[in-house]
């Protein structure tokens, strides 16, 4: 069985265990394995991308230095880890004086050379969407799902080279193969508010709320994401008050690996899909009227 070296990151250990577990289950169903690397650390999230503070880059450089001991391809799931690690590798390849400073500080030399890829890239480039489609056992029938990309998978486009930053299609292409009917809505590449949810949560609600409204008005009954932070922001913007109770028209958010798993015939429990999410999946699959969604 083909095995890929895998870096889950902090979120997938804590708030996004469902993402981690569903991805591993999907991998198994598709005939490959995600093997966790040794010596994991926090990637530093988006803070590692700042240019003027080298200490934030110590973590991701250590991760990649350690990964090279095992393999030269490293798979990520969290869009944040993907962005940070891929750009850390690009920066290291430049062999700049600051890279030397980082290496000296880390006492673990890293000069680039890890091919950091996203799980979606395995599906698209290594297995191929055709093979994924062949492996589908329970195709969705017109599931009206909106793919939400956010920023970190796509930008900066010149460095990420993942998909068109303005009109990406990789998630829609995958969802179509699963039998879904992806919804095109303008806000799918807007920023979710990122870590402002920690420093100034009041500013996140309008941003995330606009994304939800845009998706819903275009007919999405469900959103799928590849980033735990996006999921958190999109969900919490819909909560009515601090009690955490959900409104009637709550738009559920699932990871793409959970939809992939269902289509591959895996059980909701293996994918950690809760009852509300499963209900949303079922409802969104039924044919609906134009302008749909619950009011």
């Amino acid at each position, binding site marked *: 069985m083909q095995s890929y070296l895998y870096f889950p990151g902090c979120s997938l250990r804590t708030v996004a265990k469902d993402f981690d577990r569903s991805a591993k289950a999907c991998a198994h169903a598709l005939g490959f394995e995600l093997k966790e690397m040794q010596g994991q650390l926090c990637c530093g999230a988006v803070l590692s991308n700042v240019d003027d503070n080298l200490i934030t880059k110590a973590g991701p450089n250590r991760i990649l230095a350690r990964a090279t001991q095992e393999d030269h391809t490293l798979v990520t799931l969290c869009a944040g880890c993907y962005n940070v690690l891929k750009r850390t590798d690009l920066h290291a390849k430049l062999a700049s004086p600051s890279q030397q400073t980082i290496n000296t500080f880390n006492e673990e030399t890293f000069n680039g050379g890890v091919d950091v890829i996203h799980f979606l890239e395995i599906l698209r480039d290594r297995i191929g969407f055709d093979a994924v489609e062949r492996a589908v056992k329970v195709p969705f029938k017109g599931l009206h799902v909106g793919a939400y990309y956010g920023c970190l998978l796509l930008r900066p*486009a010149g460095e990420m080279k993942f998909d068109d930053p*303005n009109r990406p299609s990789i998630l829609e292409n995958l969802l179509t193969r699963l039998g879904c009917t992806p919804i095109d809505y*303008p806000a799918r590449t807007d920023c979710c508010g990122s870590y402002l949810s920690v420093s100034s949560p009041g500013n996140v609600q309008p941003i995330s709320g606009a994304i939800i409204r845009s998706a819903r*008005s275009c007919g999405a009954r469900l959103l799928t994401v590849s980033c735990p932070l996006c999921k958190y922001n999109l969900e919490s913007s819909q909560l009515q008050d601090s009690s955490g109770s959900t409104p009637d028209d709550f738009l559920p958010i699932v990871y793409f690996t959970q939809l992939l798993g269902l289509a591959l015939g895996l059980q909701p429990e293996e994918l950690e899909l809760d009852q509300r999410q499963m209900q949303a999946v079922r409802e969104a699959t039924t044919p609906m009227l134009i302008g749909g969604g619950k009011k």
Partner: protein
Amino acid sequence: MKRVGVFVCHCGLNIAGNVNIKEVVEKAGKQQDVVFAVDHKYLCSEPGQTLIKDSIRQHNLDAIVVAACSPAMHEATFKTIAQLSGLNRYNCEIANIREQSSWVHDDPGKATAKAHITVHQGIEKVRLNEPLQPVTVPVTRKVLVIGGGIAGIRAALDVANGGYQVYLVEKSGTIGGRMAQLSETFPTLDCSTCILGPLMVEVFRHPNIKLLRLSKVEEVKGYIGNFKVKVRQEPAYVDEAKCNACGECAKACPAQVPNEFDFGLTWRKAIYTPFAQAVPPAYVLDAKNCLGLLPQACGECKKACDKFGTSCIDLDAWPRIHELEVGAIIVSTGYELYDAAKLTEYGYGTFPDVMTSMEFERMLSASGPTTGEIKRPSDGQTPKEIVFIQCAGQREPETALPYCSKICCMYTARHAMMFRHKVPEGQAYVFYMDIRAGGKGYEEFVKRCQEEKGLLYLRGRVAKVYEENGKLIVKGVDTLSGKTVQINADLVVLAVGMVPSSESHELASKLKASLDANGFFSEAHPKLRPLESPTAGIFLAGAGQSPKDIPETVAQASGAAGKALGLLSSPTLEREPTIAHVVGELCSGCSICVPLCPYDALSLNAEKLAEVSEALCEGCGTCIASCPSGALTLRNLTDEQMVAMIEAIVE
């Protein structure tokens, strides 16, 4: 034994400020064969040139070395003064001690040492130089103009009016180019067709111009003064001389295709005339979209023409190859538009109401798809809120075009003004980066548009355009107020950049003319030789060389025509004799050199020995490096001279 004189120039302080001139003169004076060495503040000045002339006579010199600036600057000046003083001009060598010594070395000691070496090399070379005579070649006194837009039209007319024969090659069915598609022109708002039309007619009627439409250059051989060009002309299937443009054929034609003249906003038939003022004024059959010519599938056009028209359609016509001989070639291949669909943030191609400026231009035109009314492509309604996005895909080195297309600020101001003129209750917004309105009356024009028509200019870029509830939502930033802006627009117009004609790459390789990094034809020198390609005998005009507007294009076209006329003004022309030369007794006739020559100058003669065409050779030296028996040498740059020069360096 030659008597060599050395002249060292101060170039004010350009050289003297960093090179010890006295030392250079002293050392030069001690070299073998040098009988005289002197310095002067400005050798290129009249007193400086007189010094050279007098010294040559006084000291009976038969070779000189001038240590001064780059030969690109004054080689011709000094060679001419040497010639006027009775020397053979090829016994004058330039030692570049400015660009290669004083300007590039910080340390005066090192700069002086380098200057000395450079002068010494020049002395060693000139000692072994032979007197040479320029090569004289005849000139074919005809000109080929490639591209029938306003640049090609102007250039062809100027050459033809100068009394010489012109072949004007145009790939489409009519001349007129992009300018024929424009509605008005800035800053005077002349109707474009009204000012272009008379020139097109003049081309058509001019006895000295042979117009070849539907034609492409297939092969170019030869050299300055003597090009041999093959042009392939596709059949129009309509006899130009007989057709009276009655249009019966098009009425009968059942095949409808998008009309490229209107960028697909309207339809045309497979047999059509591109526009009312097309020249030649004859219909043309577009064989690609015809229902079938081989075998004939329909033939309705011919039936209609035979019945109602002038029986001018021949569906069995074949392409023709014209073999032309010309002395000069003017390249005026023009521009195309950058593919707006690549700019995915604006949604061109996804949202029907996002259009390019050229499509908007057609809509403004009285002969356009809406006969001059402004309407949304999606529903035909008159747009009330319109957003113009300047620099769309331009000045974006990372993702699109790195350069500025120079004309968009001007035509966008005109577009916005025309919109307000035609839709007075409407509002026009213009997103811009800078307003580049350099040109006579340009700044005034933009100001007038802005002030009189109340246009809203927003300095900033647009991040995203999307559709919501029948409106186009334009999200951008106004960097002057520092705020993000959202405009709910009815129509969005993208000022996409100019890119060179898609066929210029292929044409450039046929012409052996170089292109720049963006695919535009390169000029020989950006300031001093802007109308010429580095390849001799090829001149440039219009937007194929760089983005430019109509006044500049016309000026460049007349300039290029003037250059071509200058070339044709003499029946012969002189070429540098510092070219390759075969020492017959050494050549074994192996012919290794023949295919390597980039100028087709080498061939095997009747005795199966290599022969250099003096007219074709550019003196590049490729053949010399390839010759296994050392039979090829470059005149005045022989191996012996090279060795002597190297010894001067390593001494």
